[in-house]
């Protein structure tokens, strides 16, 4: 069985968030990019969990080849981490431009899956922590004409099909999907494993296959940008918080409860 995991490199979302909480998140002169060059780039967390989902299938005894592919301006660095985690093949599709239209990303990924021999299972993180859009997996599934299962916390193989436990607002749901299928993974899957020292060393010797977008024979329609980021800004949140006063925790608490009762919010 062939599994292809699609991964994206993003700015460390926790670092971005810390800058935001401190009120220091800024947009540069191009009006689009975040200025903080100190923020590290790393593999999107949900995509790491997608790699983990693939590795768990292998651990469960499924005979599979795990390929990891990344599209981006400089994907090779990101891909090495996938190798260290345990991928059998790693591929990178360098894409000119810092933020490609995700329709193009999806077209490149679908073309890669087709041209590299197809896949029984395509795994993706549920969304990227930078744009949060989460549309690439759906666009890929439609391009390949295969079904999509979202928000998986567990993926198992049963015969030639997959049994997937999904996170839904009403709790866990279990579905069965035939191969081939695109599955997106959510953080409820749990902690991804850390690469072992031995794997990290072995990964250094793994060369990613670099595939130029031209080699993937995209149509003019695939290449035409459709949704283009024009600018990015940090929204200002106007606060008007009334801080309650009291000398002791008991006083503060009584003041708050009294106020909430007065406002009719609690009985």
């Amino acid at each position, binding site marked *: 069985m062939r599994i292809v995991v699609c991964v994206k490199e993003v700015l460390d979302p926790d670092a971005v968030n810390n800058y935001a909480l401190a009120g220091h998140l800024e947009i540069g002169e191009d009006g689009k990019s975040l200025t903080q060059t100190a923020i590290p780039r790393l593999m999107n967390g949900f995509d790491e969990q997608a790699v983990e989902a693939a590795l768990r299938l292998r651990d469960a005894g499924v005979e599979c080849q795990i390929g990891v592919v990344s599209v981006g301006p400089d994907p090779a660095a990101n891909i090495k981490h996938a190798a260290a985690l345990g991928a059998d093949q790693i591929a990178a599709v360098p894409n000119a431009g810092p933020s490609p239209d995700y329709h193009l990303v999806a077209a490149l990924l679908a073309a890669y899956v087709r041209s590299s021999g197809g896949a029984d299972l395509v795994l993706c993180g549920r969304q990227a922590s930078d744009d949060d859009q989460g549309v690439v997996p759906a666009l890929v599934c439609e391009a390949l004409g295969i079904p999509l299962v979202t928000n998986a916390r567990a993926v198992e193989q049963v015969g030639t099909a997959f049994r997937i436990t999904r996170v*839904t*607002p009403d709790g866990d749901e279990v579905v069965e*999907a035939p191969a081939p299928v695109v599955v997106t993974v*959510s953080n409820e899957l749990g902690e991804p494993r850390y690469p072992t020292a031995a794997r990290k060393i072995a990964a250094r010797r793994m060369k990613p296959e670099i595939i130029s977008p031209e080699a993937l024979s995209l149509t003019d329609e695939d290449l035409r940008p459709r949704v283009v980021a024009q600018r990015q800004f940090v*929204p200002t949140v106007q606060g008007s*918080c009334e*801080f*309650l006063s009291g000398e002791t*925790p008991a006083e503060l608490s009584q003041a708050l409860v009294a106020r909430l009762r007065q406002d009719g919010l609690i009985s």
Partner: protein
Amino acid sequence: MSSKRILVCTRSESAGAPSVGAEEALTLGRRLASSLGVRLSWLVLGPLPDGGLETAGRFGVDDVDQIEDPRLDGFSPDASVEALAAYCQQESPALAIFSQTPDTRLVAPRLAGRLGAGVVMNTVDVVVGADGALEATASAYGGDTRVVYQLSGAPSYVVALSASAVSPEPAPDGPTSPECRTISPDLAAIEERVRVIEHARSEGPRLEEADVIVSGGRGLGSPENYKLIEQLAEALGGLAGASRPIVDEGWVDSSQQVGLTGKITRPTLYLAAGISGASQHMAGCSAAGTIVAINRDPDAAIFRYCRYGVVGDCLEILPELIRAARQ
């Protein structure tokens, strides 16, 4: 392009039930349709909500189209995408607006893929730009930033509108008198490829519907202290929620996670204890009527969103709050 209408798509869960976010989507749709000088259509999958035509008139809808088919019962993504795609291929809307829900997060981008349309999720606004092309503003980085996307190059577009991004407003030009048309797409060939083996069993009341929520975060210090959140929630007649970090740590089940990738709640009262106020979390509770925070850091970001704040140690304040609430 000038003759292409604006379309709002909603789905009714059960006969009569109003669709979450429908009025917000219709408000945005009316605004755009008026800016562009085109018609506003409302496509309902499933039965019309109670008072649906009246709602449609109030929000300035020009046409109501309804698709009812047993294949659309329950969550049937393949049938839904097929029905929507067939309709859009026939009617060619410039823009299809969905309310963002876990279901539309799957259906909207699949529809776009099927149609060769552009798609933007987490949308907070759509306007007509200076050059006549649509511009969609969406949140990014968990809500820390907003990105403005230009929508041009594709024949049509799909957007999913985030909950509470738009305030519902009746049509400024007064009500319309739309007619309702029933559409019957041919879904006979559709068989859902994904089969549900075990349905989710919703255990008890849902956070999304709770009127009062008390949530805890890292400021609680350790997992045992989460019981203070549960006790306070109970004392206030509400439900207990959590921020993502403590869910990831395993202190609490993921079903209680409030946030961008968890539950989007809209209670009358949201009390956050030991939560920093990261955008990712606020995305799940900023629609609350009143937000109250308890945090030891007077500069914590969460206080920017609050109506009332208490600066102090959660572990000292919460037991006192429980006591006061029980009196």
